[in-house]
């Protein structure tokens, strides 16, 4: 994964879920985090689209089980846009 992508995703999620950065890890997920409900999941997706300027497909959104997955999807998407 490109350096910095996870940190960017983490700081977006921290603002949206109103939790401090350091409480979020790659394993943070809707199961471990009360604020991460289905509405917040949609808002996270929209925030990523807004920030990185792409549109995520339903298949990609389905792969986002935890914050590490989210960063991996974003990273792949950014690479695809470059090539």
């Amino acid at each position: 994964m490109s350096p910095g992508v996870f940190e960017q995703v983490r700081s977006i999620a921290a603002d949206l879920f109103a939790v401090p950065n350091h409480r979020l890890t790659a394993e943070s997920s809707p199961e471990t985090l009360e604020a991460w409900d289905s509405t917040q999941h949609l808002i996270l997706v929209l925030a990523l689209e807004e920030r990185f300027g792409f549109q995520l497909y339903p298949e990609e959104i389905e792969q986002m089980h935890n914050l590490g997955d989210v960063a991996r999807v974003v990273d792949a998407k950014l690479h695809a846009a470059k090539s």
Partner: protein
Amino acid sequence: MILLVGVRAFIDDKAGVYLELRKEIDELLARNSWRAAYCRLGDLWRQEPGQVAAAFVVSRCEKLRGQISLTPFRLAILRSFTVEPLISLLRAVAFLSGIDLQVHLGDFNAYPQEILDRNSLLYQFSPDVVILAAQACDVAPDLWNGFADLSSEEAAAAAQRVVNNYRQWARAFREHSQASLIVHALEQPSVPSLGVLDAQSPLHQRAAFEQINQQLLTIGTELRGVFLLDYDSLVARHGRIRWRDQRKWLTARMPIAADHLIHLAHEWLRFLVPLSGRTAKALVVDLDNTLWGGVIGEDCMTGIKLGAEYPGASYQALQRAMLDFARKGILLAICSKNNPEDALEALEHHPAMLLRPQHFAAMRINWNDKAQNLHEIAAELNIGIDSLAFLDDNPVERENVRATVPEVTVIDLPNDPTDYAAALRDCPVFERLTLSPEDQDRTALYAAERERSHAEQTLTSKEDFFRFLEQEAEVALVVPPTFARVSQLTQKTNQFNLTTRRYTEQQIADIAAEPVAQVSSIRVRDRYGDHGLVGVAITRDRGEDCEIDTFLLSCRVLGRTVESALLAHLAEQARARGRRRLLGCFLPTRKNAPARNFYSQHGFELQSQNGDGSLWVLDLHQVTVSPPAWIKMNIANGGKN
């Protein structure tokens, strides 16, 4: 402040600026510098508007509650699609416009029940305003998807059914609630089902939706407080194809692409600002490089850029936008660092100027500090400093005004003058939802006022002046055509307002219908012109008492004894109806000091007093309130008995 701007310019990385600002805001909050924190939150939002900044702005603005002036406002949204991701965007832009929004969301596609059932959660929430956001594909599925299957009679019948539904919902809503209702009109399909053939007949798909929207407009004019949001124009303005995200619609019932959500939130704000009264009453503008290109003191009349061609056309477009505002009753004023002779020469004689001196209600063309000039302009126009908006091309002046007169709305201009007019028209503080004849004539009235105060200075005694004015007042009970203006006066009058009770049009209509209540209005004319409807009094009979619920007078006619004339009329009418006492409250606010001694000056006795205000009483058998001899009174219709 100027130093701070300089420092920021060195941080060219946008993300860097954003992070810097976040840190600064939290430090300011920790130091209880509420106003400064609020200003910086606006900067942060402009830096990178979106979901992430919205979450930050909302969380920090909640800490400002009670520290800065915010108008609490309750909004319910009834919807046929997912609007949850819009809420924090909307709350953020509302906070930054001075509105503290509480939002209630209706269930998916449950709006018909929610509106028709008077016990629904919608009405329990007691909203100030309700948005009905239903999509065309949900309210008119047969016209949206199956249009090609329909005969022209079937299509017309389907369109009529849609309109009938809306009419039924709007009427039921009006019966159950006094809130305002904003109805999304229907959007057009991006590609009509018959392709280019659709445009060849007035009976086809596009025309069907246009007809529905036309009829929705008539519902809005039939019912008070019902307004139409032109959703199709909004979508078209931002690009129909990019607006819609079909994948999210199919998977999450969220039809709008991520980067367009903010545009819908902003459109909603354009209604919420006038409905909550956070509008600007006057626009104060700079001259050089704002009303025209260049500097008049250096470039002279022939050198400044102003005309129908590029680059002067950009400045003419801005002037046109300002003229349009003046037609809506927004006052224009000038605040410019210039030699007055140079500036006035251009204002009076430049052939391409659309605005002339008579369009401006106040002018400060001098070398003084702009903050001081803004205070003077507010005083001259007799409006609060928080009713001013400030337009200046110079970011340093803008920053200075933001820092020193934070109550003023500072408009951010883009760098390219070609975009000035659009940026100005985009400001929600200039939106109005209704227009009274008084609004349209306001600039002329202020120009006459300047002449009048000149006359006042040349006449020796106050009484001479009052006689010279030749005032005529007409008192009448409120009737449906004046509900809007009467409600507007209760909403906007702050200074000579004894109780500052705000009423919607609907509430005025309801009070007027109470058998024991009298809603009186007063119009004033004098030798300089017609001021229109400028005062309101609401009274209620209770036993042998007549209680004054509301008594207010527009600042436009303050200090000319019109208030005594209106009070004398109320006392006379109450006596004629057999009342023995006239009762009135004074509830002090930050702004209504001019009304403080009103009752004591007219022979009322203080009955009681507490932290909220004072209660005054006049014995109608003992004391007479005499109407001023210099005002000719006309009573349009007597009290109802």
